[in-house]
């Protein structure tokens, strides 16, 4: 934390009621589809119906004849620049690929946009789609990792040999093979995780129009990264960046899917520019499920060596991530393999490590970040390795973790990352205690005697949050997110407006960041208002992802508020003719220490703005302050242990979750209720990926799920209540002591659920390593039928 002591904490740490709620509860939020502009048109996209083909011809002449259709544009009509995401790595490690806004010569997945139809309403736009005639010269689709690597496989991108976009070997401890050869215990896991949709309930969408008065293209879009959308829009449309303004309204979730630049929002903007009329695009659910950005389809072949006491000696992993048809901007197809490679050792003291991470391109919808990015997968694999070792060595599964978790901080890992202090062992012990105190081990034993199948599973992990520029630069991203800027401004009524470059989409920033500012300036929270998501009002920002908002954004906010506080003190001090450190801020006023002298902010603001002649020469008029914050070390690690208790039903194979316990530590919780909300929601998404959700394709590349009948988002019936216990190990270098809390729930849940299922399956001798686990898989395991899981 900075040298400036935190002002007295009145709101930070409290479950302050959310500032966002009243409008959202009254139906007065403003989401992108709520925006209606005079003369506005509606658009939809002609999309590829085949997975892999040369575009032979695109005939849209009949589209124009459809009643209500105003215009239709193909790639040739718009002549836009491509989206190209770059890593600063040699071609042997990373192959850059271009993603055209509309497909030009080739289509690479079912759902790829080919033309934009603009009409008087969304109904007519969809009528227009049906009149487009696209002919394809089909190519064999590449639909799996194995097919992509096969000799002579068709190439999704001709420039990417073996369909490989990323191939990095970041770590290889010398002599690691000898460690494995000599180790008394080596366990292996071959695990696959299903392709998922982050699935914000609000689909993607945008409303764009050209403003003649401002000479600006104004793009209202639901994005987690407004400034990066502005950059791409300006480049694709060949406008100065000044001439593009990205405004983000209320957002109905994002979870990473809205953290990349979408082709459709750029195309809608291009159509608006061409037609000089507002153009709206709202993705429908069918497109959101089949043609949006997906995530998580990974294959791990991992092994770990242990000594006879259960101490891990070495970890060796080969990770292949199926990134689909294109690299996403700004993260690239490296997002998943680089994350997995860099962080896989996790909370454990792993002395030797080797990893190869690859991104393979296939004829599936492209992937982007999704809450947790690779961590739900590699944590699951690590936790499986430990469970398997515990079985081989006849150790208790919690005990083997106890022997291996990092306990001395800061800890420099084999992956060259320095871990700041956390409560790895404490959370593990407490979580086990909570499970024991509720009697689950006794219940398990009693159930087994009745022939029932109850299992208990744990997951112990940490989550790097607050990735600063240094950490992302190490990944060699060409767009290096990291810092954040905040401006805090006070008006003559003593009310404060402040900005952040992060972008709330459910995380409660209007509340939590206001708590920080209100405490820092000793103001009533009602006097404090956040502005976000407008590239004209916010100097710059990298948006919200990677649990960076409170750690980095919140720190910038606090620094800016503290600077403004300094100015308030300086002005008051000048009025009293004392040194600024004689002045303190309390209850909306400057107070002279040990006296009754009080100068309310309204009076200071009066001087700063309306009576500026009263200011001393060295103080500028006005009351505003700007500060930036960045992290120059490896970031800060939140941590948690989850426990899950399941019962498997032999008649149906159903996995019923009986109990879920989470002991988490995200440092100082600015608003504990908000933190719990993040945990619960994250755990629900983790469970969803482990037991329910998966995007699959048939051999021709047709996606299986175009609706919620097939993409099974779990309901309140499937998601259990979660008992949450907080620990607090404050971060030493964020301005509030907070660590990030956005992703932990999702990261921990798959391992806990999978371990619990395997614990319940123990008497059968079957172990499951692939997710999602289906009822049929469990049914087969319980009833001795041959498994459907295969590692090929």
């Amino acid at each position: 934390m900075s040298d400036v002591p935190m002002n007295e904490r009145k709101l930070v740490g409290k479950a302050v009621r959310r500032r966002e709620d009243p409008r959202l509860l009254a139906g007065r939020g403003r989401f992108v589809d709520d925006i209606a502009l005079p003369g506005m048109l509606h658009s939809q996209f002609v999309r590829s119906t085949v997975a892999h083909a040369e575009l032979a011809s695109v005939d849209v002449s009949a589209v124009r004849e459809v009643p209500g259709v105003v215009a239709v544009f193909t790639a040739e009509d718009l002549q836009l620049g491509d989206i190209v995401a770059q890593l600063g790595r040699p071609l042997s490690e990373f192959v850059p690929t271009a993603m055209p806004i509309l497909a030009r010569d080739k289509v690479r997945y079912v759902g790829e946009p080919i033309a934009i139809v603009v009409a008087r309403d969304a109904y007519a736009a969809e009528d227009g789609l049906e009149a487009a005639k696209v002919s394809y010269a089909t190519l064999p689709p590449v639909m799996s990792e194995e097919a992509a690597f096969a000799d002579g496989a068709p190439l999704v991108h001709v420039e990417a040999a073996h369909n490989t976009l990323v191939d990095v070997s970041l770590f290889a401890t010398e002599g690691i093979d000898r460690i494995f050869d000599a180790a008394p215990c080596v366990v292996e896991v071959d695990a696959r995780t299903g392709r998922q949709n982050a699935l914000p309930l609000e689909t993607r969408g945008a409303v764009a129009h050209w403003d003649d008065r401002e000479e600006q293209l104004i793009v209202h879009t639901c994005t987690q990264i407004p400034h990066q959308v502005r950059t791409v829009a300006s480049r694709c449309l060949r406008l100065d960046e000044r001439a593009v303004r990205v405004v983000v309204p209320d957002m109905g979730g994002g979870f990473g899917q809205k953290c990349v630049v979408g082709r459709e929002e750029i195309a809608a903007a291009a159509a608006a520019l061409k037609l000089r009329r507002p153009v709206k695009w709202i993705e429908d659910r069918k497109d959101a499920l089949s043609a949006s950005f997906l995530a998580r389809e990974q294959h791990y072949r991992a092994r770990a060596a242990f000594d006879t006491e259960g101490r891990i000696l070495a970890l060796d992993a080969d990770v292949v991530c199926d990134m689909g048809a294109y690299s996403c901007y700004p993260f690239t197809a490296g997002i998943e393999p680089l994350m997995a490679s860099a962080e896989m050792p996790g909370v454990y003291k792993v002395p030797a490590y080797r990893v190869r991470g690859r991104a393979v391109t296939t004829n599936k919808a492209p992937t982007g970040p999704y809450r947790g990015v690779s961590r739900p997968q590699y944590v699951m694999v690590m936790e499986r390795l430990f469970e398997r070792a515990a079985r081989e060595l006849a150790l208790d599964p919690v005990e083997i973790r106890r022997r291996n978790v990092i306990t001395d901080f800061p800890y420099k890992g084999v992956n060259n990352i320095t871990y700041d202090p956390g409560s790895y062992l404490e959370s593990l012990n407490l979580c086990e205690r909570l499970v024991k105190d509720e009697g689950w081990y006794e219940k398990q034993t009693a159930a087994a005697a009745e022939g029932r199948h109850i299992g208990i599973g744990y997951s112990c992990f940490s989550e790097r949050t607050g990735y600063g520029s240094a950490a992302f630069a190490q990944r060699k991203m060409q767009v290096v997110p990291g810092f954040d800027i905040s401006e805090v401004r006070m008006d003559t009524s003593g009310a404060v407006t402040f900005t952040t470059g992060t972008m709330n989409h459910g995380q409660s920033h209007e509340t939590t960041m206001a708590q920080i500012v209100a405490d820092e300036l000793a103001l009533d929270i009602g006097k404090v208002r956040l502005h976000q998501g407008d590239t004209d009002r916010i100097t710059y920002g990298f948006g919200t992802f990677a649990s960076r908002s409170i750690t980095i954004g919140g720190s910038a906010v606090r620094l800016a508020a503290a600077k403004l506080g300094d100015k308030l003190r300086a002005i008051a001090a000048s009025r009293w003719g004392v040194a600024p450190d004689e002045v303190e801020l309390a209850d909306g006023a400057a107070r002279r220490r040990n006296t009754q002298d009080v100068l309310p902010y309204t009076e200071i603001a009066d001087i700063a703005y309306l009576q500026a002649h009263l200011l001393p020469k060295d103080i500028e008029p006005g009351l505003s302050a700007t500060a930036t914050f960045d992290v120059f070390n490896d970031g800060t690690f939140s941590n948690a242990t989850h426990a899950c208790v399941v019962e498997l039903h032999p008649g149906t194979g159903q996995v019923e979750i009986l109990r879920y316990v989470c002991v988490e530590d995200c440092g100082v919780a600015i608003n504990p209720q908000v933190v719990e909300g993040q945990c619960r929601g994250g755990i629900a998404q983790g469970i969803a990926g482990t037991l329910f959700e998966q995007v699959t394709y048939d051999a021709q590349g047709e996606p299986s799920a175009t609706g919620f009948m097939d993409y099974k988002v779990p309901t309140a019936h499937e998601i259990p209540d979660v008992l949450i216990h907080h620990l607090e190990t404050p971060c030493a270098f964020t301005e509030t002591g907070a660590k990030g809390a956005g992703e932990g729930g999702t990261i921990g849940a798959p391992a806990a659920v999978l371990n619990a299922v395997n614990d319940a399956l123990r008497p059968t001798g079957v172990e499951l390593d692939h997710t999602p686990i289906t009822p049929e898989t469990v049914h087969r395991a319980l009833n001795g039928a041959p498994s459907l899981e295969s590692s090929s």
Partner: protein
Amino acid sequence: MKPAPFQYHRARDVDGAARLLAELGDDAKVIAGGQSLVAMMNYRLARPRHLVDIGGLRELDRMHRDAAGGLHIGALTTHHTVETDPAGVLRAGFEVLKKAMTWIGHLPIRTRGTVGGSMTHGDATAEWCLLAVVLDAEFVARGPQGERTIPAGDFFHGYYTTALDPDEILVEIVFPRPAPHAALTEFAERRGDFALVAAAVDLDVAEGEVRGGRVALGGVAAAAVRVPEAEAVLTGGGSFEACASAAAEAVEPPADASGSTHYRKELVRTLVRRACEEAVSR
């Protein structure tokens, strides 16, 4: 996901609706609650040029018992009305219907969805189709040629097809005899989903003994089916276990992404047993 254009016709009585259907031919579709049809139209999987809305025909929204104890359900009765049974007409013999409603979608689907709509949609896993088959329901349809009654055994023809003529309106479903020992149960991966397999039984119980009964399955064929092999086991005094096994062996459910043939047969075994146990304990 916006429907294709159509013309909207609001029926003022059954005969008028039937006449209009006859006039419009294949381009017309009846809409009642619309809980399946509108979704299909939003996907443009269904694109009728004419929609005949019978939703306003209140005379089709009622339930009553006849002198013989049979139950008459108007085609426009909602699942929710059956579930809540405000007039108490399901007492003494038709509690099975009330209980079965909780398996249909969710509350906001049940408030709009109708018994007749579900029957005429003819989904292979639909609870109403299964109930009709196991309880030997009769379908009263009215068209330009007048009224006729179709037994359940002849009503369901396969995937989403029924015995109704295009110009016929289903007006009433009759469950001829009380079924005090009937039960329906099913399994889906997620609450409210269409069942992977659904099972319904209607047991004949006398002096505490099961003397026979009817067994029907959904999700194992193109339409809900009776399973005579399983019924024979009940008649012969066999155990529920044996009845369930006979049912599992008698069917060959097609495999899909949610489950193989083997798994669905295993679900049949589990669910038939569960349904029998539930039915006998009533």
